[in-house]
């Protein structure tokens, strides 16, 4: 009998289909990443201590992200960021961030279960995304570090550009839309992958 206490990621059931993609497309879920939502005045006194905890300054250019090696900090709005961190690191990172913030007007919220993360890579990745998304992901328009919140096949998505050749993306999709997204992804991949 299955262990009812076992955690199951939103796309656990789609792992075989995602793994079967080959050729120009590779996709895999990165389950259970820690995701913290940070609301903060980037010009205020808490910004520097928070940057020290994260190892990078909060990106203030819209639609960009920065990585520290351990953390990935995504711009969501002029006073809002999403921090991606290794699975299981939420409790200690939240304590560290709240200590850095002190009594300043800011908020740290654990939203790890809100979205799941899919790494999409390969030479066909950009063409695949173009089937469902109007954002120009050519490296000239979306260089490494771009981070756009938009619609992909009508579902809300965050696209993080991870290299300068449009062949490596992180996609964050809401957990309740994840299976729909996976089904769309597998279907849209048909002409870009080799038959299994």
């Amino acid at each position, binding site marked *: 009998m299955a262990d009812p206490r076992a955690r199951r990621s939103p796309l656990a059931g789609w792992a075989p289909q995602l793994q079967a993609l080959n050729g120009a497309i590779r996709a895999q879920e990165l389950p259970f990443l820690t995701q913290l939502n940070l609301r903060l005045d980037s010009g205020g006194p808490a910004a520097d201590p928070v940057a020290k905890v994260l190892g990078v300054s909060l990106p203030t250019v819209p639609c960009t992200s920065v990585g520290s090696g351990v953390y990935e900090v995504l711009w969501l709005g*002029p006073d809002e960021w999403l921090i991606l961190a290794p699975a299981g690191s939420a409790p200690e990172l939240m304590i560290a961030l709240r200590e850095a913030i002190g009594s300043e007007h800011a908020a740290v919220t654990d939203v790890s279960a809100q979205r799941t993360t899919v790494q999409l890579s390969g030479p066909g990745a950009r063409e695949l995304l173009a089937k469902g998304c109007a954002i120009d992901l050519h490296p000239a328009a979306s260089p490494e570090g771009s981070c*756009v*919140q*938009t619609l992909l096949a009508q579902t809300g998505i965050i696209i993080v550009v991870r290299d300068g050749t449009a062949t490596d993306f992180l996609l964050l999709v809401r957990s309740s839309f994840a299976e729909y997204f996976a089904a769309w992804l597998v279907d849209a991949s048909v002409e870009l992958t080799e038959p299994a």
Partner: protein
Amino acid sequence: MQLIRCPWCGSREEVEFHYGGQAHVSYPENPAELSDAEWARYVFFRANPRGPLAERWVHAAGCRRWFNAVRDTSTHELLAVYRIGEPQPEVAR
């Protein structure tokens, strides 16, 4: 379908945005002193011009920020966008 320029994210497809009614309708300074008729005017009465109108819009599928826009109600063209707190820009009709 037109592209709308979010003051934060830049040009995006119109489907990413939602309309939020007339802009610059400020809350009464002394609400307790308003008559029923004055309340009704504040709550329900809005401009309905043919031509440019300042409106609130939100980038719902993107950064989720509210901003203001001047839209021509006869052509549905957004003539200008500006951030909350910025003055309404002049637009040529």
